[in-house]
């Protein structure tokens, strides 16, 4: 065709370990059709030579499903947190700047440790307890339309994008973030899960819980699965308002 070979330039924020200094390194790759950020990172791994022609260490990143359902490959791409598997090079402005989600401890390069999200799920009891010493039998039925609605909330993949986007999740606050809160709404909506709804509501009324939300609504704008996080938060606000009075005055309707 006579055109100069098209290239793609990446600018990646790197560090060798959690404590070590960060630095930016640029890479220039030859363009391929339908490239995404992960395929570019794989290309860098195959041939770790930076833009100055120097051989360097391969860039570390996390990935798993490659179809935006596992949440492992989240990173900051041109300033916004999202999954790198669905970030298409054709739709990104160059140089494409990759950074780790620094709301979490950075393990190395683009790899972060999202343990705090899983700890939060434990803290808010985001499960349905069904174990007993004897057969508890069938649980109550869930209306089909409610199940369909709850399915949307169940799409959360604990990817961490909402925590990264939230201005109130930072090192000065212990806010657990929108993801775990929305899971409380999901578990409380479940007919069997709702048998422990007060325990979850009390858990999110504790330190770093629901009250730390400042309604910036970045979470709902950023969520890759389109989960109505702010609706969940507002609904939980209503339920905890009632729970607050129940706790204070006592109630015949503990659950």
């Amino acid at each position, binding site marked *: 065709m006579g055109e100069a070979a098209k290239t793609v330039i990446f600018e990646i924020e790197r560090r060798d370990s959690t404590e070590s200094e960060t630095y930016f390194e640029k890479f220039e790759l030859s363009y391929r059709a339908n490239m995404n950020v992960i395929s570019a990172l794989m290309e860098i791994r195959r041939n770790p030579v930076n833009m100055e022609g120097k051989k360097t260490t391969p860039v570390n990143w996390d990935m798993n499903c490659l179809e935006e359902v596992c949440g492992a490959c989240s990173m900051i791409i041109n300033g916004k947190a999202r999954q790198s598997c669905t970030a298409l090079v054709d739709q990104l402005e160059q140089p494409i700047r990759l950074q780790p989600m620094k709301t979490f401890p950075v393990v190395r390069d683009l790899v972060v440790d999202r343990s705090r999200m899983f700890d939060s799920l434990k803290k808010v009891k985001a499960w349905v307890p069904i174990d007993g010493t004897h057969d508890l039998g069938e649980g109550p039925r869930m209306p089909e339309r409610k199940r369909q609605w709850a399915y949307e909330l169940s799409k959360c993949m604990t990817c961490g994008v909402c925590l990264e986007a939230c201005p109130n999740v930072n090192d000065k606050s212990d806010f657990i973030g929108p993801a775990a809160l929305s899971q409380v709404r999901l578990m409380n909506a479940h007919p069997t899960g709702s048998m422990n709804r007060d325990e979850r509501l009390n858990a999110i009324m504790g330190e770093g819980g629901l009250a730390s939300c400042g309604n910036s609504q*970045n979470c709902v704008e950023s969520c890759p699965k389109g989960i109505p996080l702010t*609706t969940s938060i507002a609904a939980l606000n209503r339920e905890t308002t009632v729970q*607050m009075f129940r706790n204070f005055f006592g109630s015949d309707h503990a659950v």
Partner: protein
Amino acid sequence: MDNREFLLRRLHSLLGVIPIGLFLVQHLFINHFATQGVEAFNAASHFMANLPFVIFLEIFVIYLPIMYHAFYGLYIAFTSKNNPGHYSYMRNMLFVAQRYTGVFLVVFIAWHVFETRFQVAIGAAEADFNMMANILDNPWMFAFYVVGVLAATFHFANGLWSFLVTWGITQSEKAQRYSTYFTLLVFLVLSIIGIRALLAFV
């Protein structure tokens, strides 16, 4: 279960509307008498200043709530890490503006109370039309008061929106969108009332 933070935060939200928000509305309404002339303003101001048990009204309806709201609000403002650059959605911009206006209002209200209420308390001045006319005669002070009034009406209107969310009154996306329109109207109406009063003094 330690839910102190939850209760403090809810109290902060509640006090912002009741009584502080209501007091702000009443204050701006009384100010508006200035547009009907010196006599009308002085009569209204005199009526408010001579309410029975006025010192208790001031302490429990104004000073204590506003001090709690201000100090806990500063703590809230300085524990957020604002990110309007990359996440420039409307609600996030309003979130940032709520924090900036809040910090500014702490300064503005402290000055405003010192310049008007405190000077009256120590007998150095009398709260009437002339007092405000003298203050607003200075173009810098006039600008300071315009910004102060707009910051207050914005902070109240936007705070009313998040009050409705915080207490679980507006829940769905549609309810929150409609309450955005409503609180925008509150902001506009209160701003017009407030600015008209300021203009009446110059």
